[in-house]
C-alpha cells in the first residue's frame, strides 16, 4: 500500500508543477490577445487618455510579471479576483457555472461510460459478427460529425419534430432534480454520441488484444462460457487502457462542452468562457482556462491511480 501512496504523492506533485506551468502559459497567451478590456468597453471613440485612466483604475497598467504574480498569489489563496465586466466576485460566478457544467458532464458520463463499456465488451465477445460491424459503423459515424451538427440534428428530430425534449436547456437552481435532468437531456445525448465511439473501440481492442494470451487459452480449456472468459478473464486485465481512455473522455466532457453549451444556451462554464473572450474580460478567461487545465490534470491523475490499482502486481506486492 505504501508504494501506491508514494506513487500518488509523486503524481500529485507533478500535477501541481504542471498547473504552475499552465498558469504561466495561460497568462502569456491572454497577454498576447490583441486589444484590451478598456478599449473593448470604451469603444472606438475613446481617447488614449481615457483608456489609460481606465487601465490605471483596473491595475492593467502594471508590468506583466507584477500582474502575473499578484494573480497567482491571490489564486493560491482562493481569491480569483473580480470580473471586469460585471464586477462580481469570480468565485461566486464561476462556482455556479462550474456546478452546471459538472452536472451536464455527469449526466453524459453516467449514460456514456456504461453504454460504451457494455457495447465494447459485447463487440469483443461477438467479434467480426454483424453486431460488431454495426456497432462500429454507428459509433464511428456519430464521432465523425462535428458535435454542433449532431446537436442540431437532435434538436430537429427530438425537439422540433417529436417535441419530446426542450430545444433550449435553460436550467436554474429553482428547478427540481428530475426537471433539470429532463432539460439537460439533449446536450447530454449529444455529448454521449460524440464520446462513446472512442471508449467502446478501446474496450473492444483492449479485450481482443488479450484473447491470444495463454491464460485465456487456459480459461477456454477449463470449459468456461465465452461470456465469462471475456468478463472474468480478459476484462480485468484490460482495465488499464480502458480507464485511460474513459478518463480522457470525461475530461473532454467537462472541457469540450463549449460548443454544445453555446448551441443549447446552457448556462455552463463554456458559455461564460466564450462570452468573456469576446468582451476581453481577462480575469474570467484566465480563471476558466485554469479550471479546465485543473480538470485535465486531476482526471489524468485519477486515471493513473486507477490504472495502478488495477494491476495486481502493484496492489498486492510479493
Amino acid at each position, binding site marked *: 500500500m505504501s508504494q501506491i501512496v508514494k506513487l500518488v504523492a509523486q503524481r500529485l506533485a507533478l500535477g501541481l508543477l504542471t498547473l504552475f506551468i499552465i498558469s504561466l502559459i495561460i497568462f502569456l497567451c491572454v497577454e498576447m490577445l490583441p486589444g484590451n478590456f478598456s478599449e473593448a468597453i470604451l469603444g472606438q471613440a475613446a481617447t488614449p487618455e481615457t483608456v489609460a485612466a481606465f487601465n490605471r483604475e483596473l491595475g492593467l497598467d502594471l508590468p506583466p510579471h507584477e500582474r502575473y504574480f499578484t494573480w497567482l498569489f491571490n489564486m493560491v489563496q482562493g481569491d480569483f479576483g473580480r470580473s471586469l465586466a460585471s464586477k462580481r466576485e469570480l468565485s461566486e460566478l464561476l462556482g455556479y457555472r462550474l456546478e452546471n457544467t459538472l452536472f451536464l458532464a455527469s449526466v453524459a458520463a453516467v449514460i456514456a461510460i456504461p453504454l460504451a463499456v457494455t457495447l465494447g465488451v459485447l463487440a469483443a465477445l461477438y467479434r467480426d459478427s454483424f453486431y460488431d460491424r454495426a456497432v462500429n459503423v454507428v459509433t464511428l459515424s456519430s464521432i465523425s460529425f462535428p458535435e454542433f451538427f449532431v446537436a442540431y440534428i437532435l434538436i430537429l428530430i427530438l425537439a422540433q419534430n417529436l417535441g419530446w425534449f426542450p430545444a433550449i436547456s435553460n436550467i436554474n437552481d429553482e428547478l427540481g432534480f428530475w426537471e433539470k435532468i429532463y432539460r439537460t437531456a439533449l446536450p447530454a445525448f449529444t455529448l454521449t454520441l460524440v464520446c462513446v465511439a472512442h471508449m467502446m473501440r478501446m474496450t473492444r481492442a483492449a479485450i481482443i488484444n488479450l484473447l491470444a494470451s495463454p491464460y485465456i487459452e487456459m480459461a477456454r*480449456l477449463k470449459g468456461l462460457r465465452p461470456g465469462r472468459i471475456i468478463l472474468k*478473464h480478459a476484462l480485468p486485465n484490460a482495465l488499464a487502457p480502458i480507464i485511460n481512455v474513459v478518463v480522457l473522455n470525461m475530461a473532454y466532457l467537462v472541457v469540450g462542452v463549449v460548443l454544445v453549451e453555446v448551441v443549447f444556451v446552457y448556462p455552463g462554464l463554456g458559455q461564460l468562457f466564450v462570452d468573456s473572450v469576446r468582451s476581453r474580460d481577462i480575469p474570467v478567461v484566465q480563471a476558466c482556462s485554469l479550471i479546465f487545465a485543473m480538470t485535465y490534470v486531476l482526471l489524468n491523475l485519477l486515471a493513473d491511480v486507477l490504472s495502478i490499482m488495477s494491476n495486481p502486481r502493484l496492489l498486492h506486492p510479493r
Partner: protein
Amino acid sequence: MSETADKTGQKGDVLVEMHGLRIEGRSDDIWHEIVHGVDVILHRGEVLGLIGESGAGKSTIGLAAMGFARDGCRISGGSIMFDGVDLTKASDESLRQLRGSRIAYVAQSAAAAFNPAHKLIDQYCEAPVQHGIMPRAEAESDAIDLYGRLQLPDPENIGFRYPHQVSGGQLQRAMTAMAMACRPDLIVFDEPTTALDVTTQIEVLSAIRGIVRQFNTAAIYITHDLAVVSQMADRIMVLRHGNLVEEGDTRGMIEDPQKDYTRELLAVRTFRKDLLDEPNAETPLLRVENVSAAYGKSPVLFDVSMDIHRKRTVAVVGESGSGKSTAARVITGLLPPSSGQVYYDGQPLAPDHRKRNKDEKRCLQMIYQMPDTAINPRQRVSSIIGRPLEFYLGMRGADRDARVRELLEMIELDPAEFFDRFPDELSGGQKQRVCIARALAAEPELIICDEVTSALDQLVAEEILKLLQSLQDELGLAYMFITHDLATVRAVADEIVVMLQGEVVEQGPKEQILTPPHHEYTELLLSSVPEMDPDWLDNLLDQRAP
C-alpha cells in the same frame, strides 16, 4: 469425492482413441497439413508420453485430445473418440462441458497460464463451480487438500495468493491441482517442467506422478526430453514432422529402440570434447577479480572471481537467479561492478563499455540465448555478418562479401544459398549459426555464450555444440559458456564454475568438479539431471527421503 471410487470402468478400458488424425495449420492464408494421420490409443489410468522436437506436432495432438485446435489450426480429418463420444463431431457446447470437467490441461508456463488478476484458489474453484460439480465451499476445502497432496508449502493459505506471489515450481503444482479439481478422466500435460530449473523440475515431476497415480487419472505427457518422459510415462510415442516414428512401452523403448531417430534422441548428450592439458601458467586471457555488482540497490553478485585461459572453455552453471548472466554483463561492461576489477590479458578493462576502445570490444564477443531476438529480422544474413566486418575491421565491398562467404562456410551454411536470406527464412539452429558467424566476424579471442543452446531442440543443440568445439580447435578461441544444463557442461567444459545466489560455490577443472566428493549444491544439481532410466526418479526420491 473419494479417491478413485467413482471412476467408472477399470484400468485398461480404452478412454481415448484417435484414428487417422489429421490437423492443418494456416500460414499466409494457405492450409498446410501438420499432423499426417496419427493413431493414438490411451487407456484409463495410463500415462502416454508424446515426444519429439519442435514442429513434431505433439502439442497439437495433445490439444486435439480435448477436441481443441489453436487459432490458425483445424482438425481436418480422422476421428477422436473420447469415452464413446466423437469429439470431431461434438457441438461446441458439449465440448465445453467436457473440457475442465472430464479432460483437463496443464500448460507449459504456469506463470503465463494463470490469470494475473485472480487468486489461485479462485481460479481453482472456477471449473468445479461452473461445471456444477460442487459448491464453492466444498471446492475450496478440496483445493486445500490437493495443495497438500502436491506438497505445496502452507496449503491452507497458498491459494489465497496471486500468481505473481508464488514461485514457478509452486505455480506449476498449483496448476496441476487446478487440472485435478473436477477429478478428470484425462489430463494433458504440455511440457509442464520445460521452463523450470532441474532442482525444481524434480519436485514437480514427483508431485505430478504421485497425484496422477493416486487418482488413477489417464494422462498425455508431452515433452521433448526423453529422460523426463521415461520417468512419467507407461508408454511412449515418438513423433517427428507430424508422423509417428515409433511407439512402445517405456522400458522397451529406452532399452531397445527400433528406429534410428529414436536412437539419435537417446544418444543425445553423449558428445564429449577431448580433454586438454592443464592450462599453462601464462597470464589468463580474462581475469575476474573479486567482482560484486548490483541492480540499483539490490545486490546480485558477491565477490566473484574466475580466470579464463586461451583456448579453454569455462562453463558457468547455476539455476535462474544465480547471477551467471549478470557476471557476463559485468565482463562485457554493460553493468559496471560496484567493486572488483576485470582484467583482459593482464590489463584492467574499463568498467563501463563506453570507455573501452574498439579493439577491447572486438576481442570480446557474445552469443545469446534467443537467436530470434538477437538478430535484426529486416536485415539479410550478409549484412548481419558483414556489419562487424565493416565496424571492427574496416572491410568494404567485395572484400567484405568474400569474408562473409568464408564465415558462412565456417559455420557450415552454404554461402550460395544463405548469403541473401532473411532471418525468417532460417530455422532456429541456422539462426544461431548466423549469430555465431557474426561473433566470429569480429575475430574475437573470447566468446561469451549465454545459454546458446537452451532454446534449441536437443539434436540441433548438439550440432551447435560440435560446431563451437571445432571452431575452438581451429581458431584457438576461449569460451565462457553460461548454462543451466549440466549435460551441456559435461560436453563442452574444460573448467567449471558453479554459482548459487550470486556467489561462486565451487570452481575447478571439469574432472575435479564432476568426480565426488562434490560440494553439497553441485551434488544436488548433478543428481537432479534426469537420466534415461525409468527407475531414476524413484531411486532418487528414495535416496533423498529423510
